[in-house]
C-alpha cells in the first residue's frame, strides 16, 4: 500500500472559528484502496476536517492536495467534481423530494436542461439495489424511516464513480444487518481502489473494517497508526489524552461502595401513586440523600415523563409528591427550582442551551431565574461561580465569554450541568446527560455525579446506556410502556442481561 502515492494529502490544516481553533496544523493522508478511520472525541476536529475536505469550510492556512495537485474548494460542488463524495453525520437529504432525486440530484441524467425522470428513477433504483434496498424511487424520502434514509444517503455517495468516499458516522442509525451490508459495499469499493474515510463512535466497527487510524484531539493531530499496531485501550487513551491507568481508575471507582440507610430516614422526595394520563401510569418512588437512582427502559418507556413529573414540568393528575415530607401543591419548574430540584433536559439543543448566549450567561440562567428578574447576580459573585464550575468541570475552551454554540457537544453538556449545580440543588435530575459525548468526558461526568452524591445530593440519572447506569447508580428503576415495572438495588452481581430480562418479561420475574 505504501508504495502508492496518496490520493489526498493535507498539510498543516488550520481552521479558526471565533474563539475556537477547530483545526490546528493537522496533517493527514489517504491512500487509494484503504479504509482509513478518523478517530477522536467530540470536538476533536473530525467533522471540521471533513467539512474542509468537502468545501463546506475553507482552510485558514495549510493545504489540501488531491493526487499531488493543490486544490482549494469554495463550495461542495467543486469537491464533488474532484471525486469526493460524502455521507454526513446528520442525514443531510431533502425529505420532501423523492428518493430518486435524493440519490441522483446533482448528477441526474438530463435531456438538454431537463431532468429525465425515467432514467433518473432507473439509475437510483440500481444504486439502491446494490445496497439491497428495494423501495420505490418515486416515493417521498420522508415517508421512510431514518435507517432507510441513511442508506439513501450512502446510495447517493456511491452513485458517482468517486475516488474518495467520506463516511461520517454512517452507522449511527443503521441496524446490524444494514451495517453488514454497508461494510460489504465498503470492501467492494476498497477492492476497486476507492479511498474511504470512515468516522465512527463504535470501536467495534472501526476494528472490524478499518486498515489505518488517524487520531485527533482538541483540533490537533495525535498520530497515525496501522490498525494492527494499535490495541483498543491504547486508541482510547490516545483519543482521551489520559493514560490507561487513569481511565481504569475512573471506571472502577463507583460500584464498590455500599449505602447504609437509617430506618427512619425521611426520603428527600417521595412519589406516591404519582401519574398523569397518557404520559405515565401512577408510580411510587423514593429518593434519599446521597443516592443515585437510575431510570432505565427503552426510548418512549416513560423515563422522561417520570422525570418531568418529579420536576414539576408537567402537572400530575393522580397521586402526590412529597419533598422532605412536605406534600407539593403547586407544580411548576420555578417552584421546583425554589425547592432546590433541578432538571437537566435530554434535548440539549432545543430545551437546554441557548446557543447565542455566552457560556457565562448559560451558566447563570437558572440561578438568575430563581432570583427573579429584578435582582441581578452581583458580577463578582457570578464570576466566582462561573470560575469555580469552569475549572471543576474542566470546560474547554476555558473562556466564559464564548457563545455556547461554538463549544463541542460534551462541553455544552458540562455547561448545562454547571447551570444546575450553580443553583445548589438537593435533587438533581439528569436526563440523558451522556448522549453524544465521547469516552473521556463521559467518564468525567460520571465521576462528577458520584462526587455530588457523596456530598449528599440526591440524583436521578436517566440513560439509554445500561453500562453507565450500572456504573453510577445505587438503585435502578426499570420502566416499560409508561409503567414503572421494577426496582432493583445495584450490586456487584447485577448485569445488564438481568435488566433486559426484566424489561422483556414486563417485570414479572423480579
Amino acid at each position, binding site marked *: 500500500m505504501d508504495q502508492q502515492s496518496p490520493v489526498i494529502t493535507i498539510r498543516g490544516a488550520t481552521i479558526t472559528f471565533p474563539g475556537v481553533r477547530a483545526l490546528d496544523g493537522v496533517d493527514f493522508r489517504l491512500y487509494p484502496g484503504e479504509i482509513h478511520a478518523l478517530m477522536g472525541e467530540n470536538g476533536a476536529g473530525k467533522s471540521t476536517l471533513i467539512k474542509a475536505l468537502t468545501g463546506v469550510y475553507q482552510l485558514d492556512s495549510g493545504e489540501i492536495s488531491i493526487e499531488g495537485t493543490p486544490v482549494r474548494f469554495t463550495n*461542495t460542488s467543486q469537491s464533488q467534481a474532484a471525486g469526493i463524495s460524502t455521507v454526513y453525520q446528520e442525514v443531510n437529504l*431533502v425529505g420532501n423530494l423523492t428518493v430518486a432525486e435524493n440519490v441522483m440530484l446533482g448528477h441526474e441524467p438530463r435531456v438538454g436542461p431537463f431532468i429525465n425522470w425515467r432514467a433518473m428513477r432507473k439509475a437510483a433504483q440500481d444504486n439502491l439495489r446494490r445496497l439491497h434496498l428495494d423501495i420505490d424511487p418515486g416515493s417521498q424520502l420522508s415517508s421512510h424511516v431514518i435507517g432507510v434514509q441513511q442508506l439513501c444517503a450512502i446510495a447517493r455517495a456511491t452513485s458517482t464513480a468517486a475516488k474518495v468516499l467520506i463516511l461520517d458516522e454512517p452507522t449511527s442509525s443503521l441496524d446490524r444487518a444494514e451495517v453488514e451490508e454497508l461494510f460489504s459495499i465498503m470492501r467492494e469499493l476498497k477492492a476497486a481502489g476507492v479511498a474511504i474515510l470512515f468516522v465512527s463512535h463504535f470501536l467495534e466497527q472501526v476494528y472490524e473494517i478499518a486498515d489505518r487510524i488517524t487520531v485527533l484531539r482538541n483540533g490537533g493531530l495525535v498520530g497515525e497508526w496501522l490498525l494492527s499496531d494499535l490495541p483498543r485501550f491504547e486508541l482510547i487513551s490516545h483519543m482521551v489524552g489520559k493514560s490507561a491507568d487513569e481511565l481504569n481508575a475512573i471506571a472502577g471507582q463507583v460500584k464498590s461502595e455500599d449505602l447504609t440507610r437509617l430506618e427512619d430516614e425521611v426520603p428527600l422526595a417521595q412519589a406516591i401513586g404519582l401519574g398523569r394520563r397518557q404520559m405515565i401510569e401512577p408510580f411510587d418512588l423514593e429518593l434519599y440523600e446521597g443516592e443515585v437512582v437510575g431510570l432505565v427502559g427503552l426510548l418512549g418507556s416513560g423515563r422522561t415523563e417520570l422525570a418531568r413529573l418529579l420536576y414539576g414540568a408537567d402537572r400530575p393528575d393522580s397521586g402526590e409528591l412529597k419533598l422532605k415530607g412536605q406534600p407539593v401543591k403547586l407544580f411548576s419548574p420555578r417552584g421546583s427550582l425554589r425547592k432546590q430540584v433541578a432538571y437537566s433536559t435530554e434535548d440539549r439543543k432545543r430545551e437546554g442551551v441557548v446557543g447565542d448566549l455566552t457560556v457565562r450567561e448559560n451558566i447563570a440562567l437558572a440561578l438568575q431565574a430563581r432570583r427573579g428578574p429584578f435582582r441581578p447576580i452581583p458580577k463578582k459573585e457570578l464570576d466566582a461561580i462561573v470560575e469555580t464550575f469552569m475549572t471543576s468541570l474542566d470546560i474547554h475552551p476555558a473562556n466564559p465569554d464564548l457563545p455556547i454554540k461554538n463549544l463541542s457537544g460534551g462541553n455544552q453538556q458540562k455547561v448545562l450541568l454547571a447551570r444546575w449545580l450553580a443553583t445548589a440543588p438537593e435533587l438533581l435530575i439528569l436526563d440523558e446527560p451522556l448522549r453524544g459525548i465521547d469516552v473521556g468526558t463521559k467518564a468525567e461526568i460520571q465521576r462528577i455525579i458520584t462526587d455530588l452524591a457523596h456530598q449528599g445530593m440526591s440524583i436521578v440519572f436517566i440513560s439509554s446506556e445500561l453500562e453507565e447506569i450500572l456504573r453510577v447508580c445505587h438503585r435502578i428503576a426499570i420502566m416499560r410502556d409508561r409503567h414503572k415495572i421494577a426496582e432493583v438495588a445495584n450490586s456487584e452481581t447485577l448485569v445488564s442481561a438481568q435488566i433486559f430480562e426484566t424489561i422483556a418479561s414486563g417485570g414479572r420475574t423480579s
Partner: protein
Amino acid sequence: MRTRAARFTRILSRLTDRRFLPVLGTLLTLVIMLILGQIFFSTRRGGFISMPLFSNLLVDNSYLLLLAVGMTFVILTGGIDLSVGAVVALVGLVIARLLTSGVPLIPTLILAVLIGTSCGVLIGVMVQVFGIQPFIASLAVMFLARGLANIVSVISIGITIPANGRTDLYPGQAQFAALASWSIKFGEGRGIWRITAPMIIAFTVITIAFLVLHYTRFGRTVYGLGQGDGGTAVQRMGLRPDISKITVYAVSGTCAGIAGLLFALYTRSGYCLSGLGMELDAIAAVVIGGTLLAGGSGFVLGSVCGVFVYGLIQVLNARWGLQSWWAKVFIGAVLLVFVLLQRALTIQRTRRKQAALVMADAIDPEFR
C-alpha cells in the same frame, strides 16, 4: 401482465401520495362549485358549465394567475413576496406613461417586465445576502414600488387609441389598444367565447413554470430549500441554494411585471392605487391551491386551481345576486378550511418523523 399490474399499482400509489392530497382537495372544491353552479344557474339556453364561463374566468383572472405562479415559487422555498401588488401598479403606470408619451410598444413592454424582475432581485439579494426576513424585505419593496407609482402619476392614465387619430405620433399606444381588444372568437350567439392575448401569455408562463419546477435542477432546488434547514442539505448535495433563492424572487418579480402588463391590458389604463391587496389575493389562491405556507410542498397547477376557485367564488356570488363583499366572506371561509387542513397534514407529518426517530433509537446497536 403482472408487471403491468405492478406498474399500475405503483402509479396509483404515486397519485394518491399524500403530497397530492391538498391539491385533490382543491380540485374537489372546484368540482363541487361547478356542480352547484350547474344546478342553480343553468338556463334552457345553456348550462352554467360552458366555454364562455371558463373564458370569462380567464379574462378576469389572468393577472392573478401570473401572480399566483410567481408566488408559488417563493412560498415553496418558505418565503413570501408582499411586493407584487405594488409592482403591478408601478408597471401598469410605467407602461401607460411611456406609451402615452410616444415610446414604441416593444421597448416599453421589455422595460416593464424588467422593472418587475429588478424588484424581485432586490428582495432576493436582501433575503439571501443580508439575511433579512422575506416578509420585511418584500414589505420594503412594496412601499418602494407603491411610492414610485405615485411619483409616476397620481391620476389614472388611460391607454386608448389616440382620439385625434395621430397613431403615427403614438404608435405604441395604438398597438397596445389593439392588443387589448384582440381575440380569437369561437361559437356564436350566447355561446360565444374568446381567446385573448393575456390568456395565451398566462398559459405560456404556467407551462414554463411547470417545466422549470419539475424538470430542472433549479426547480428541484426550490423544493429542497423549502424543507427549512436554511439550504444546508441542498448545498451538501452540490446544488446552489444561494443563487436559487435570489432567482426565486426574481421569478416572482418577473411574474409580477408580466401581471402588471396583463392588468394594464385588462383595465386599459395605469393607476397608482390599482393592485391594492392583490398580493394577498395571490397568497390566498396559492394556499387554497394546496401549497404549504411553510414551504417544500405544493404545485403550480394547484395554484392555478386555487385561482379558479377564487374566481368561481366571485362568479357564483354575482349570479346569486349577493353584494360583492360576500365573496370575501366565502374566500375567507375557504381559506380557513384549507389552512386547517394543511395544519392537520403537517402535524401528521411531524408525528411520523418523530415515530421514525423513535424507531431509529430503538434499533440502536447498544440495545441489541
